[in-house]
Protein backbone atom coordinates (compact mmCIF):
# COMPACT_ATOMS: atom_id res chain seq x y z
CA UNK A 1 0.00 0.00 0.00
CA UNK A 2 2.87 2.35 0.78
CA UNK A 3 4.40 1.50 -2.58
CA UNK A 4 1.10 2.40 -4.26
CA UNK A 5 0.74 5.69 -2.39
CA UNK A 6 4.35 6.59 -3.13
CA UNK A 7 3.99 5.77 -6.81
CA UNK A 8 0.77 7.80 -6.88
CA UNK A 9 2.71 10.77 -5.46
CA UNK A 10 4.89 10.80 -8.58
CA UNK A 11 1.92 10.86 -10.94
CA UNK A 12 1.28 14.55 -11.16
CA UNK A 13 -2.10 14.39 -12.85
CA UNK A 14 -3.48 11.97 -10.23
CA UNK A 15 -2.07 14.10 -7.42
CA UNK A 16 -3.76 17.13 -8.96
CA UNK A 17 -7.04 15.24 -9.03
CA UNK A 18 -6.63 14.56 -5.29
CA UNK A 19 -6.56 10.75 -5.59
CA UNK A 20 -5.66 8.61 -2.59
CA UNK A 21 -5.04 4.86 -2.15
CA UNK A 22 -7.25 3.42 0.60
CA UNK A 23 -6.07 -0.19 0.46
CA UNK A 24 -3.85 -2.37 -1.69
CA UNK A 25 -3.82 -6.18 -1.62
CA UNK A 26 -2.83 -8.84 -4.12
CA UNK A 27 -6.46 -9.22 -5.19
CA UNK A 28 -7.16 -5.53 -5.64
CA UNK A 29 -6.75 -1.89 -4.78
CA UNK A 30 -9.16 0.79 -3.56
CA UNK A 31 -8.70 4.38 -4.70
CA UNK A 32 -10.62 7.49 -3.62
CA UNK A 33 -11.36 10.59 -5.68
CA UNK A 34 -12.80 13.59 -3.79
CA UNK A 35 -15.66 15.70 -5.17
CA UNK A 36 -14.19 19.07 -6.03
CA UNK A 37 -15.69 22.10 -7.71
CA UNK A 38 -12.99 22.19 -10.39
CA UNK A 39 -13.73 18.56 -11.40
CA UNK A 40 -17.38 19.21 -12.19
CA UNK A 41 -18.58 18.26 -15.67
CA UNK A 42 -21.96 19.97 -15.74
CA UNK A 43 -21.96 23.35 -13.99
CA UNK A 44 -25.76 23.31 -13.79
CA UNK A 45 -25.93 20.09 -11.75
CA UNK A 46 -22.51 19.96 -10.04
CA UNK A 47 -22.00 16.33 -11.07
CA UNK A 48 -18.38 15.11 -11.27
CA UNK A 49 -17.07 14.86 -14.85
CA UNK A 50 -17.02 11.38 -16.40
CA UNK A 51 -13.44 12.08 -17.43
CA UNK A 52 -12.34 12.60 -13.81
CA UNK A 53 -13.98 9.28 -12.87
CA UNK A 54 -12.28 7.68 -15.86
CA UNK A 55 -8.87 9.04 -14.81
CA UNK A 56 -9.30 7.60 -11.32
CA UNK A 57 -10.36 4.22 -12.71
CA UNK A 58 -7.45 4.17 -15.16
CA UNK A 59 -5.07 4.90 -12.28
CA UNK A 60 -6.69 2.22 -10.11
CA UNK A 61 -6.46 -0.33 -12.96
CA UNK A 62 -2.74 0.27 -13.36
CA UNK A 63 -2.22 -0.14 -9.62
CA UNK A 64 -4.30 -3.35 -9.59
CA UNK A 65 -1.67 -4.73 -11.99
CA UNK A 66 1.16 -3.55 -9.75
CA UNK A 67 -0.51 -5.25 -6.76
CA UNK A 68 -0.94 -8.53 -8.62
CA UNK A 69 2.67 -8.45 -9.89
CA UNK A 70 4.21 -7.34 -6.57
CA UNK A 71 7.05 -7.74 -5.53
CA UNK A 72 8.05 -7.73 -9.19
CA UNK A 73 7.72 -4.51 -11.10
CA UNK A 74 6.56 -4.19 -14.68
CA UNK A 75 5.26 -1.42 -16.88
CA UNK A 76 1.71 -2.14 -18.03
CA UNK A 77 0.50 0.18 -20.79
CA UNK A 78 -3.27 0.16 -21.32
CA UNK A 79 -4.52 -1.58 -24.46
CA UNK A 80 -8.23 -0.98 -24.08
CA UNK A 81 -10.42 0.55 -21.37
CA UNK A 82 -14.18 0.71 -21.16
CA UNK A 83 -16.23 2.54 -18.56
CA UNK A 84 -20.00 2.29 -18.17
CA UNK A 85 -21.58 5.16 -16.25
CA UNK A 86 -24.51 3.52 -14.45
CA UNK A 87 -25.80 6.58 -12.67
CA UNK A 88 -24.56 10.06 -11.81
CA UNK A 89 -22.78 10.32 -8.44
CA UNK A 90 -24.31 12.77 -5.95
CA UNK A 91 -22.64 16.21 -6.12
CA UNK A 92 -20.45 16.80 -3.10
CA UNK A 93 -19.72 13.11 -2.51
CA UNK A 94 -16.35 11.41 -3.06
CA UNK A 95 -16.19 8.26 -5.17
CA UNK A 96 -14.25 5.08 -4.47
CA UNK A 97 -13.01 2.62 -7.07
CA UNK A 98 -12.14 -1.01 -6.45
CA UNK A 99 -9.92 -2.49 -9.17
CA UNK A 100 -8.84 -6.09 -9.40
CA UNK A 101 -6.59 -7.94 -11.83
CA UNK A 102 -8.62 -11.14 -12.29
CA UNK A 103 -6.44 -12.79 -14.91
CA UNK A 104 -2.72 -12.59 -15.61
CA UNK A 105 -1.25 -14.16 -18.76
CA UNK A 106 2.42 -13.95 -19.84
CA UNK A 107 1.66 -10.96 -22.07
CA UNK A 108 -1.67 -9.50 -21.01
CA UNK A 109 -3.51 -8.58 -17.80
CA UNK A 110 -7.29 -8.33 -17.41
CA UNK A 111 -8.77 -5.92 -14.88
CA UNK A 112 -12.31 -5.37 -13.59
CA UNK A 113 -13.29 -2.15 -11.83
CA UNK A 114 -16.29 -0.93 -9.86
CA UNK A 115 -16.88 2.60 -8.56
CA UNK A 116 -19.27 3.61 -5.77
CA UNK A 117 -20.14 6.75 -3.93
CA UNK A 118 -18.26 6.93 -0.64
CA UNK A 119 -20.32 5.22 2.05
CA UNK A 120 -22.48 3.40 -0.52
CA UNK A 121 -20.07 0.55 -1.17
CA UNK A 122 -22.77 -2.05 -0.53
CA UNK A 123 -25.19 -0.32 -2.89
CA UNK A 124 -25.51 0.37 -6.58
CA UNK A 125 -22.22 1.27 -8.28
CA UNK A 126 -21.98 4.58 -10.16
CA UNK A 127 -19.64 3.07 -12.78
CA UNK A 128 -18.11 -0.21 -13.86
CA UNK A 129 -15.04 -0.73 -16.02
CA UNK A 130 -13.16 -3.41 -17.90
CA UNK A 131 -9.60 -3.06 -19.12
CA UNK A 132 -6.70 -4.94 -20.69
CA UNK A 133 -3.01 -4.10 -20.38
CA UNK A 134 0.20 -5.42 -21.98
CA UNK A 135 3.06 -6.55 -19.75
CA UNK A 136 6.51 -5.08 -20.28
CA UNK A 137 9.10 -6.68 -18.06
CA UNK A 138 12.05 -4.64 -16.82
CA UNK A 139 15.64 -5.75 -16.21
CA UNK A 140 17.47 -4.71 -13.05
CA UNK A 141 18.48 -1.45 -14.67
CA UNK A 142 14.85 -0.61 -15.26
CA UNK A 143 15.04 -1.18 -19.01
CA UNK A 144 12.26 -2.93 -20.87
CA UNK A 145 13.27 -6.50 -21.77
CA UNK A 146 10.10 -7.77 -23.48
Amino acid at each position, binding site marked *: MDVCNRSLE*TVRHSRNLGMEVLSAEEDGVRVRLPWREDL*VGNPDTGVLHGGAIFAMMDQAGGMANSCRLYPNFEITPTIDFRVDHLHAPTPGKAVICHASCYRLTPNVTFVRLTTWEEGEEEGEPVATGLATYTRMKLDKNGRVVS
Partner: protein
Amino acid sequence: MTDSLKALIEACRKGEANYQDLVDRVPYARFLGIELLVQGEELTFILPRNENNIGNPTLPALHGGAVAGFMEQAAIIFILLEMGEPKVPKTIDFTIDYLRAGLFRDTFAECRITRLGRRIANVHISAWQKRREEPITIARAHFLLSEENN
Protein backbone atom coordinates in the same frame (compact mmCIF):
# COMPACT_ATOMS: atom_id res chain seq x y z
CA MET B 1 -30.27 26.49 -17.01
CA THR B 2 -30.50 25.32 -20.59
CA ASP B 3 -31.59 28.80 -21.63
CA SER B 4 -28.19 30.33 -20.94
CA LEU B 5 -26.44 27.42 -22.64
CA LYS B 6 -28.75 27.66 -25.65
CA ALA B 7 -28.20 31.41 -25.87
CA LEU B 8 -24.44 30.90 -25.72
CA ILE B 9 -24.52 28.30 -28.52
CA GLU B 10 -26.64 30.58 -30.69
CA ALA B 11 -24.26 33.47 -30.04
CA CYS B 12 -21.31 31.25 -31.01
CA ARG B 13 -23.02 30.31 -34.27
CA LYS B 14 -23.69 33.96 -35.08
CA GLY B 15 -20.08 34.83 -34.31
CA GLU B 16 -21.15 36.96 -31.35
CA ALA B 17 -19.47 34.74 -28.77
CA ASN B 18 -16.32 32.72 -28.65
CA TYR B 19 -16.62 28.93 -28.87
CA GLN B 20 -14.00 28.81 -26.12
CA ASP B 21 -16.71 30.09 -23.72
CA LEU B 22 -18.50 26.77 -24.24
CA VAL B 23 -15.40 24.95 -23.00
CA ASP B 24 -14.71 27.36 -20.18
CA ARG B 25 -18.12 26.98 -18.58
CA VAL B 26 -17.13 23.40 -17.68
CA PRO B 27 -14.86 23.37 -14.59
CA TYR B 28 -13.19 20.06 -15.51
CA ALA B 29 -12.42 21.32 -19.04
CA ARG B 30 -10.66 24.30 -17.49
CA PHE B 31 -8.84 21.95 -15.10
CA LEU B 32 -7.38 20.09 -18.10
CA GLY B 33 -6.85 23.32 -20.06
CA ILE B 34 -8.85 22.35 -23.16
CA GLU B 35 -8.85 24.76 -26.11
CA LEU B 36 -10.83 24.84 -29.31
CA LEU B 37 -9.91 25.66 -32.88
CA VAL B 38 -12.76 26.55 -35.23
CA GLN B 39 -12.05 26.54 -38.95
CA GLY B 40 -15.20 27.23 -40.89
CA GLU B 41 -17.56 24.62 -39.49
CA GLU B 42 -14.76 22.26 -38.48
CA LEU B 43 -13.85 21.83 -34.85
CA THR B 44 -10.48 20.68 -33.58
CA PHE B 45 -10.00 20.27 -29.85
CA ILE B 46 -6.61 20.98 -28.32
CA LEU B 47 -5.11 19.76 -25.07
CA PRO B 48 -2.05 22.01 -24.79
CA ARG B 49 1.11 20.50 -23.31
CA ASN B 50 0.66 21.01 -19.58
CA GLU B 51 2.70 19.59 -16.72
CA ASN B 52 -0.45 19.06 -14.68
CA ASN B 53 -1.59 16.34 -17.09
CA ILE B 54 1.54 14.20 -16.81
CA GLY B 55 0.98 10.58 -15.78
CA ASN B 56 4.43 9.08 -16.32
CA PRO B 57 7.17 11.37 -15.00
CA THR B 58 10.07 9.33 -16.44
CA LEU B 59 9.10 9.30 -20.14
CA PRO B 60 7.46 11.87 -19.64
CA ALA B 61 4.00 10.99 -20.92
CA LEU B 62 0.49 12.30 -20.44
CA HIS B 63 -1.88 10.54 -18.06
CA GLY B 64 -4.16 8.15 -19.96
CA GLY B 65 -7.03 9.50 -17.91
CA ALA B 66 -6.30 13.09 -18.92
CA VAL B 67 -6.34 12.13 -22.60
CA ALA B 68 -9.58 10.17 -22.12
CA GLY B 69 -11.22 13.04 -20.21
CA PHE B 70 -10.16 15.45 -22.95
CA MET B 71 -11.72 13.22 -25.62
CA GLU B 72 -14.94 12.74 -23.64
CA GLN B 73 -15.32 16.49 -23.14
CA ALA B 74 -14.56 17.09 -26.83
CA ALA B 75 -17.39 14.73 -27.77
CA ILE B 76 -19.81 16.43 -25.36
CA ILE B 77 -19.18 19.86 -26.88
CA PHE B 78 -19.29 18.45 -30.39
CA ILE B 79 -22.72 16.88 -29.76
CA LEU B 80 -24.02 20.04 -28.05
CA LEU B 81 -23.30 21.99 -31.22
CA GLU B 82 -25.11 19.40 -33.35
CA MET B 83 -28.27 19.32 -31.23
CA GLY B 84 -31.31 21.36 -32.18
CA GLU B 85 -32.32 21.77 -28.54
CA PRO B 86 -29.01 21.74 -26.71
CA LYS B 87 -28.94 19.88 -23.42
CA VAL B 88 -25.73 18.61 -21.84
CA PRO B 89 -25.34 14.96 -23.00
CA LYS B 90 -24.75 12.36 -20.29
CA THR B 91 -22.03 9.79 -20.88
CA ILE B 92 -23.42 6.25 -20.98
CA ASP B 93 -20.17 4.51 -21.83
CA PHE B 94 -16.72 5.42 -23.06
CA THR B 95 -14.29 2.91 -24.62
CA ILE B 96 -10.75 3.86 -25.55
CA ASP B 97 -7.91 2.14 -27.40
CA TYR B 98 -4.42 3.34 -26.53
CA LEU B 99 -2.35 3.03 -29.72
CA ARG B 100 0.77 5.05 -28.95
CA ALA B 101 2.25 6.73 -25.90
CA GLY B 102 0.81 10.20 -25.35
CA LEU B 103 4.04 12.17 -25.19
CA PHE B 104 4.45 15.41 -23.29
CA ARG B 105 3.33 17.65 -26.12
CA ASP B 106 0.17 19.23 -27.54
CA THR B 107 -2.64 16.78 -28.27
CA PHE B 108 -5.45 17.28 -30.79
CA ALA B 109 -8.82 15.59 -31.15
CA GLU B 110 -11.63 15.44 -33.66
CA CYS B 111 -15.07 13.88 -33.36
CA ARG B 112 -17.41 12.16 -35.76
CA ILE B 113 -21.01 11.43 -34.95
CA THR B 114 -21.91 7.97 -36.19
CA ARG B 115 -25.55 8.45 -35.34
CA LEU B 116 -27.44 11.25 -33.62
CA GLY B 117 -30.74 9.80 -32.49
CA ARG B 118 -33.44 11.41 -30.38
CA ARG B 119 -32.20 9.74 -27.22
CA ILE B 120 -28.76 8.35 -27.99
CA ALA B 121 -25.70 9.71 -29.77
CA ASN B 122 -22.95 7.39 -31.02
CA VAL B 123 -19.64 9.19 -31.36
CA HIS B 124 -16.17 8.31 -32.56
CA ILE B 125 -13.25 10.38 -31.27
CA SER B 126 -9.69 10.32 -32.51
CA ALA B 127 -6.70 12.02 -30.86
CA TRP B 128 -3.25 12.64 -32.30
CA GLN B 129 -0.04 14.53 -31.60
CA LYS B 130 2.29 14.43 -34.62
CA ARG B 131 -0.06 13.72 -37.47
CA ARG B 132 -3.80 13.19 -37.72
CA GLU B 133 -3.12 9.92 -39.61
CA GLU B 134 -1.21 8.55 -36.61
CA PRO B 135 -3.69 8.65 -33.74
CA ILE B 136 -2.40 8.06 -30.20
CA THR B 137 -5.88 7.01 -29.05
CA ILE B 138 -9.25 6.29 -30.60
CA ALA B 139 -12.47 6.12 -28.64
CA ARG B 140 -16.09 5.18 -29.11
CA ALA B 141 -18.72 6.57 -26.80
CA HIS B 142 -22.49 6.68 -26.27
CA PHE B 143 -24.34 9.61 -24.77
CA LEU B 144 -27.86 10.01 -23.45
CA LEU B 145 -29.48 13.11 -24.95
CA SER B 146 -32.96 12.99 -23.54
CA GLU B 147 -34.52 11.49 -20.43
CA GLU B 148 -37.97 11.46 -22.01
CA ASN B 149 -39.05 7.88 -22.16
CA ASN B 150 -41.29 7.75 -25.19
